[in-house]
């Protein structure tokens, strides 16, 4: 048994993405209609041209009917997928495989989430009838990811105040990027001191260390690579799709030290193998990563191979991952500033790769690495938390391999 990638076998030829934010006047259906509409327009097709749909949402609907009803799809296959915050990426992966298998010519991946109707702070989660008895020690999402901070500081000898400076800078950077993104939830730069002194939510994390709770939808149209130029002059080709669900043993195993996501390491290595990438920091033009909370982005820089173990905080501080850094990370603002409607986020990341690799990102946040000849983008999307997560890594490129 082995994993066979589908490098260069499928391409994305159309994408759509709504603005993310507080859509008080619009429903999940409205958002789906908008994102799907933009995607089909960008591919120059109609909805009837799409053969099959993979629809991702965590809690804003169940079954394929949520999509088929909203779009009044006439008797098409629609599969709802869910993998926590990686739901959008899971939808994309399935759509890609469906086309690569030859089963369909044109597939669509759509993700949506409507979080702001709940009236809750943060993620309201889903009503999974689990043990319901506190015997797993459940905590809120910010508290869960905040567990990384003291562990990282202790392991690498940073004072907690120093680490606070590092994560503050991550939030600052993503707000700078988001301010240049008309679709982002938060479009203002935020001074470092304001981020640093914001009210604390959990552990070391203030409100600015947390991703935006938002509504939104994003969609992608996938076709066989050889058909791609029928739809667009600038398709992006799928180089790697790597998804893992971990054994969820980090909360059981004292050897897990809360300074890494082993699931991310595994999925990244597999993605680099599929895509033939050996030096991601040098080869990638940009990376969109799952910065649900600022310490997550810090740890991801090491897990994805962008920084040496224990060194990412230095790279963050020196600006390596800034918009004008050696490897821009989250040039669209990330979950932090773009917002995080669970089921849509993975596809939103891909939307940024789509814009940047096609040269369509607004000039003020266009990464210069593309003009310098890099043609690969990475998206990383995870669900769960430290010790227990699912992780997705994709690599896409604007050129077919020689």
């Amino acid at each position: 048994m082995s994993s066979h990638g589908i490098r260069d076998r499928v391409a994305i030829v159309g994408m759509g993405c709504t603005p993310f934010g507080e859509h008080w006047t619009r429903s999940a259906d409205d958002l789906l209609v908008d994102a799907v509409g933009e995607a089909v327009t960008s591919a120059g097709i109609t909805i009837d041209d799409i053969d099959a749909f993979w629809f991702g949402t965590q809690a804003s609907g169940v079954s394929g009917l949520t999509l088929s009803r909203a779009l009044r799809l006439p008797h098409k296959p629609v599969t709802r997928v869910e993998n926590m915050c990686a739901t959008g990426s899971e939808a994309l992966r399935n759509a890609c495989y469906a086309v690569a298998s030859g089963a369909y010519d044109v597939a669509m991946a759509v993700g949506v989430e409507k979080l702001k109707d709940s009236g809750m702070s943060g993620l309201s989660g889903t009503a999974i009838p689990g043990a319901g008895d506190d015997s797993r020690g459940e905590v809120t999402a910010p508290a869960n990811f905040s567990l990384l901070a003291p562990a990282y500081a202790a392991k690498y000898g940073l004072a907690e105040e120093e680490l606070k400076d590092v994560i503050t800078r991550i939030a600052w950077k993503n707000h700078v990027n988001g301010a240049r993104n008309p679709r982002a939830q938060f479009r203002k730069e935020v001074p470092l001191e304001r981020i640093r002194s914001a009210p604390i939510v959990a552990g070391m994390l203030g409100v600015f260390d947390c991703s935006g709770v938002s509504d939104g939808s994003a969609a992608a149209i996938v076709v066989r690579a050889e058909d791609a130029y029928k739809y667009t002059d600038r398709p992006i080709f799928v180089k790697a799709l790597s998804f893992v669900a971990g054994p969820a043993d980090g909360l059981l195993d004292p050897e897990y030290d809360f300074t890494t996501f082993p699931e991310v390491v595994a999925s990244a290595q597999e993605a680099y193998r599929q895509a033939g990438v050996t030096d991601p920091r040098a080869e990638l033009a940009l990376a969109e990563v799952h910065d649900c909370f600022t310490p997550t982005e810090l740890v991801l820089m090491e897990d994805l191979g962008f920084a040496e173990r224990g060194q990412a905080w230095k790279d963050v501080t020196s600006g390596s991952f800034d918009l004008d850094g050696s490897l821009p990370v989250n040039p669209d603002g990330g979950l932090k500033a773009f917002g995080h409607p669970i089921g849509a986020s993975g596809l939103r990341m891909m939307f940024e790769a789509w814009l940047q690799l096609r040269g369509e990102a607004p000039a003020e946040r266009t990464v210069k690495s593309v003009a310098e000849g890099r043609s690969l983008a990475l998206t990383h999307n995870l669900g769960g938390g430290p010790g227990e997560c699912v992780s997705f890594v994709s690599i896409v490129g604007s050129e077919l391999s020689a």
Partner: protein
Amino acid sequence: MAGLIAYGAHVPYHRLARADVAATLGTPPGRGTRAVAGYDEDTTSMAVEAARVALARDCLRPRIGQLFLATAAPAYLDKTNATAVHAALRLDEHVLAVDMAGSVRSGLGALVTAARSAVPTLTVLSDLRTGLPGGSDEVAGGDGAAAFVFGGHRNGAPVLAELLAHDTVSDEILDRWRLPGAPASRAWEERFAEEIYVSLADKALTAALDQAGLDRGAIDHLIVSGLHARACATVRRTAGARPEAAVPDLTGVIGNAGTAQPGLLLADVLDRAKPGEVIALVVLGDGAGVVLLRTTDALPAHRSTRPVAAQITAGSAPMPYATYLSWRGLLDREPPRRPDPEPPYAPPAHRRTAWKYGFVASRCEKCGTRHLPPDRVCTSCRSVDAMTDEPMEHVRGTVATFTVDRLAHTPSPPMLVVVVDYDGGGRFRCQLTDATEADAVIGARVEMTFRRTVTASGIHNYFWKARPVRTGETGDETEETHG
């Protein structure tokens, strides 16, 4: 020889200063402090904590034949509360577990019933005293629990105090009462019952001493317990025991824990009594009762691992009165903007009783990896169904990482969360209780405590939390008796 073979007490960590009540409400200043059950404690969870101390020697558990839980503040009606205690203690399923609930006198009833029983009996006295804000019941009351095992001598379980005699008199007297559901009890004019109680105590004490063939001068420790403070003081003064035998009632530091008070006072005496001393426990309430005990040579070697005095010393700095009021449900505060807490679901809770109540993990027979919660598939070698039970309640651990969750639903925000790595293997993430944010640090030593985590949809959720290992409490029993 029949008698007491084990005992233990639980004094909650928190304290309320009476002066703070007075300052808040503008009432005349009070003195001293009272013990306050945590927001995550009730009479059931406190009973478990006291019984865990009493049963610190694991050899006792298989011997227990029946369990009585006495309380005037039962966590549930209709449903037995003693069964939760039974489950948390991992007692054999054939052990009778029943409540003696409703009246403060049930504490005396449970003690006497246990002392009379033919089978080794665990009796737990637990109470949580609440009154209306500023009332004497609130400021004089206290919370706590005490547990006693009565039985005969067997290997490894020597009698610590021989039962010499007991007597009870019953009297229907309207000196204190509470309608079910009422927030506080009511009392008749204090002077009314005083004379009656003094006379009833004399009758019971006389009868018990006669049975034992002792006179009042033989009493080395005279404990007088009851909610009628004035009557108790008079009995203490006029019972005819030597003046130095009168035992202080601890009300000044932890308050009067009602049903549990005779137990807490008896435990405190047992913590320091010498061998061969006579203890007279006099309990007033709807009559009077007397239990006469004589300590044995075995007592010094088998005292409680958590003396009452040490628990009093290890208590918190006084908490704000407003916090006390909100914990007791007397001050309704704005909840977080989060989904309401989930109640436990009956079937999964029942399937996992050993874990949820007993904190029983599993250990892989193939590779030795410990799993909390217990699993069927080993996280290390992935062997399937090759696990043995591994009780974890006594195992201490070290904090691997932590957080302070300011968003989580908790009756006392913020929620402290720690990832605990246990001595001997295994990890679990849980709440940290009886602690402040300063206690949540990497490397902190913690031990487990049984708590009521939340009440949702009218259902109490019981589970284990970690608490700091505090100096002032004796016994790192982990290594010696539980290895």
